[in-house]
């Protein structure tokens, strides 16, 4: 039995509360709702049944045995036993994730209703500050196109500031580390792509249906080209601490960061802002990109 005792306790209390609220419930429905087998539902009900108050004099929970024989949970008595509230960590985990999806611009409508219910029931357990600016004029056509399996035309500005118009088969909105992305199939690239939502300038639903179905394997992935090692003074630490897959170690008055580089020019652009604190950059590929970008900047800014 790998199941943790507290997880089982939570499910048992859940089954009890569910039956109390919904009335007689077939075991099969409980099994589906709580994601376990019918045999497990029976075992949980048996455990609730034999629960006892101190002194073993009184059973606070009683089910009908006739209904039990017909695989139905029917509550005869429940003396105030109920599901327990969310712990502080659980509340932060749930409200934090929902609000982050909302701030990133990728919270489904049902999520907004859920968040409102949770905020009514719980003292606001965490503050979430929005950063991305994804307007409804971008999000709504995308969600509508996904729901109706339609193609969309998007105007996209990539991380290297290249602007393009693409026709994509939209699949899903994904939030990762606080930012929202559109998973889609891009007709121009003839491949699956992930577009950052706050870089989509406009989205128009087209008449045509999508032709490429979402795949589990071609979902969110950014394949790093190489791993870089950078030594930077403490004051410049902020520029490296968001790098993908970063590991940072203290080294006297500096830090040494190693991280994944997908696009050398993009990483070099990030490092430029802390160039006065940079001590060393490896490999040469990244150092060359840094030099090239710096030269290009100095050509125009004097």
């Amino acid at each position, binding site marked *: 039995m790998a199941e943790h*005792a*507290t*997880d089982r306790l*939570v499910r*048992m*209390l859940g089954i009890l509360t*569910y039956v109390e*609220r919904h009335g007689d419930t077939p075991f099969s429905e409980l099994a*589906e709702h*709580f994601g376990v087998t019918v045999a497990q539902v029976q075992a949980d009900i048996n*455990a*609730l049944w*034999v*629960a006892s*108050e101190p*002194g*073993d004099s009184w059973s606070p929970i009683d089910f009908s045995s006739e209904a039990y024989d017909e695989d139905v949970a029917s509550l005869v008595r429940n003396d105030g036993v*109920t*599901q*327990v*509230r*969310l712990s502080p960590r*659980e509340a932060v*985990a*749930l409200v934090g*994730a929902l609000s982050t999806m909302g701030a990133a611009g990728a919270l*489904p409508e049902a*999520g907004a209703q859920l968040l409102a*219910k949770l905020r009514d029931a719980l003292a606001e357990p*965490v503050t979430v*500050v929005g*950063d991305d600016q994804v307007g409804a004029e971008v999000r709504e056509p995308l969600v509508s196109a996904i729901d109706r399996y339609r193609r969309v035309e998007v105007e996209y500005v990539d991380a290297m*500031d290249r*602007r393009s118009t693409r026709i994509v088969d939209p699949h*899903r909105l*994904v*939030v*990762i*580390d*606080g930012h929202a992305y559109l998973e889609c199939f891009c007709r121009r690239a003839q491949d699956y792509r992930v577009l950052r939502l706050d870089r989509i*300038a406009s989205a128009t639903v087209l008449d045509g249906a999508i032709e490429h179905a979402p795949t589990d394997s071609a979902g969110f992935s950014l394949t790093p080209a190489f791993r870089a090692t950078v030594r930077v003074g403490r004051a410049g630490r*902020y520029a490296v601490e968001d790098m993908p897959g970063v590991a940072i170690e203290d080294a006297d008055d500096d830090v040494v960061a190693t991280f994944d580089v997908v696009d050398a*020019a*993009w990483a070099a*652009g990030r*490092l*430029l*802002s802390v*160039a*006065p604190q*940079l001590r*060393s*950059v490896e490999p040469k590929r990244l150092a060359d990109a840094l*030099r*090239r970008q*710096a*030269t*290009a*900047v100095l050509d125009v*800014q004097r």
Partner: protein
Amino acid sequence: MPVEKSQRLLNLVIGLSSTRHRLTRDQIRDTIEGYEPLPYGASDEERRKAEQSFERMFERDKKELRELGVPIETVEDPVHGDEIGYRIRPAEAAMPALDLTAAELAVVSIATDYWRGAVLGGDAQRTVMKLASSAEHGPRVELPFAALPSVASEAFGTLVEAVADRQTVRFEYSSVSSGAGTRTIDPWRVVLRAGIAYVIGFDRDREAPRTFRIQRIGGKVRTVGDTGAYAIPKDIPLGALAESEDVSTARVAVRPESGHALRRRGTPAGVEDGWDLYDVAYAHGDSLVAEVLALAGGARIVEPKTLADAVVRAATAALEVEHG
């Protein structure tokens, strides 16, 4: 036959919820099914062993139930000497009736993915089960949304609990402005901003509210002193984390077909030598400088001069960096 642990925990919850006043440790051991009552006529040695094993078991059960969100209160009763008793107030322990729809429950599952593999992952998974008790049953709802794991350290979980418990914490912190050192704070609130976690609290040594980026905490967060040690102010200063107000305006020249983000934010201010001019509001000069640098010649700052100089300084320094 020994009673299963989940059964014992259930009996303990029922026992502590139904007691009129409180249950002492002895009462818990002797009356709640699942614990071993002291053997009758046992030797002193046997009694001592049995007591120790009960203590260990009960402490662990109490800790796990509290982590689950069950508010187990400690009740002292001067009439009965110093012996401590325990109880649960049912109204405080119960999950409020939320009446969720099937679609709302589906969103809970998506949201919990956000923490998968991170320190709050187990807590998030449990919310699905807890909220399922309050949700309608319906066909599985598929939503075209997803959330992917975020990084949250053990420090994050400890701080969330410290805020709930009003307990002072101490940790090693390295900051941009004041280097590395030990901080002692009364944590007030955990804040998430664009996937990055912060804690705001009262810094005991600096005697002022401070904001800490949780990722910059090195090692463990330790709790110091008792729970309920301070009050959390009603209005917590979000400081720089609040949506910052734009305070200054810079004029930026943008090469045709580039600087799209600057163009979207700025106000057109004419054309100069084939470059488009924009007035862009900014709160932090550093971030505007970083943005212009990252455009690699696609934009330059016309004024103020301090920012233009910062661009030149950074690019010049970049030419002198060692490489491997």
